[in-house]
């Protein structure tokens, strides 16, 4: 017993180091295989507030460009609206809508890591829940991963773990959108079968297979494509529409049918076994 205590006292620094290392590695490795930790994220109260107050200052530097962006979007939406034959305002009653939209502001953005997360200033209080889709006026951005009362972290499409259903516009050939961690303006679309005719410059949009994003939200254009090692599927490099380095205003999409879809899928899965 004496010897054990002596041993612990003599190597206490080393043991402390090993203990702390195991703790850190535990958190880190767990996040590689599963979700971001519930506690170790920037949506908590302290970090959220510090990041937000910093953002309150820095946001003024980009106001001009941001206004321009929003004007362009309004212009586009107005054009759609005015050219529509008839407008039925009762259809905008929120009870009947499948998708509802909340706006938010980015208070922290990163794009240089293998696993990038964006923090936004909307949380549980604004009825933002995990697994909602987040887009900007130009294209998709990511999926909400964790929420606190006032903030939420978003798993960016520039994240190793990101996997989003996407398709080639005006066709029904869909694949998965992933990121190879190399460039912040290029993501990869995989699992598109070889028989699909592709051209450089084709637009990639979200597919209808996910219960997170509505169909046909723009993602980017094809920059380059080649066959994968098995020669049966394409690896496509997609140049993003979004400038991931400069994002201020975002829209958070809530699909009111999502729970029903998930429930049904779960039911089918258990019945199938």
């Amino acid at each position, binding site marked *: 017993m004496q010897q054990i205590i002596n041993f612990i006292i003599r190597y206490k*620094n080393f043991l402390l180091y090993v203990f702390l290392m195991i*703790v850190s590695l535990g*958190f880190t490795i767990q996040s590689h295989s599963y979700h971001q930790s519930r506690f170790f994220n920037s949506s908590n109260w302290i970090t959220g507030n510090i990041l937000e107050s910093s953002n309150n200052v820095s946001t003024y530097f980009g106001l001009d460009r941001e206004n321009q962006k929003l004007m362009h979007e309004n212009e586009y939406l107005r054009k759609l609206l005015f050219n529509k034959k008839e407008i039925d305002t009762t259809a905008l009653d929120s009870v009947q809508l499948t998708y509802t939209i909340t706006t938010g502001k980015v208070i922290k953005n990163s794009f240089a890591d293998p696993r990038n997360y964006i923090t936004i200033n909307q949380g549980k209080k604004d009825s933002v829940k995990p697994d909602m889709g987040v887009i900007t006026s130009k294209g998709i951005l990511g999926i909400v991963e964790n929420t606190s009362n006032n903030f939420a972290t978003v798993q960016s499409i520039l994240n190793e773990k990101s996997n989003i259903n996407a398709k080639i516009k005006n066709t029904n050939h869909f694949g998965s959108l992933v990121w190879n961690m190399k460039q912040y303006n290029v993501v990869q679309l995989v699992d598109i079968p070889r028989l699909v005719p592709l051209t450089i410059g084709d637009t990639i949009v979200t597919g209808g297979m996910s219960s997170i994003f509505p169909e046909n939200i723009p993602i980017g254009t094809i920059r380059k494509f080649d066959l994968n090692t098995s020669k049966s599927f394409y690896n496509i490099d997609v140049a993003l529409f979004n400038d991931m380095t400069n994002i201020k205003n975002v829209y958070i999409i809530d699909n009111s049918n999502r729970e029903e879809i998930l429930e049904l899928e779960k039911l089918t899965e258990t019945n199938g076994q």
Partner: protein
Amino acid sequence: MVSNYYFLNVIRFILLVLVQVLVFNKLNFFGFINPMVYILFLYWYPVKENRAAFIGLGFLLGIAIDFFSDTMAIHAASTITIAYMRPAIMRFVFGVNFEFQSFKLSNTTRAQQITYLALLIIVHHFVFFTLEIFSLANFLLILKKVFATGTATLILCLLFGSLFSVRKE
């Protein structure tokens, strides 16, 4: 005098965390270089302090940065590594001298200080990027990031060091 001394370290801790997360995490020089200047805290931390407390502080520092940058506990793992290895690195750079009571960082030569800082940075960045990228297939990417970010960190730390260094008495 003693409280003054703790006060200085607490202020240094908070300021370095804030500077790191509010300024340097957003730098993205060449698209991917984010220098990690908070290492200066471990560089400046007094030599003769309790080692266990030093490792504990290293962990706190790392986890504080991790909270802000959504990197799980990668920063913490790297900071405790350099906190643990610091005596070995110091012995390598300064010889047995550093264990004497009269040892002061400001009394050593410039070359020694730079070597000491550079070794801390290399170990830290190596652990950090290995854990961050987490695959040996991307070993070249790890080396590239260690080299590029390490250089930027070293230059900035030296600049900061000369700005805020304790005056020679």
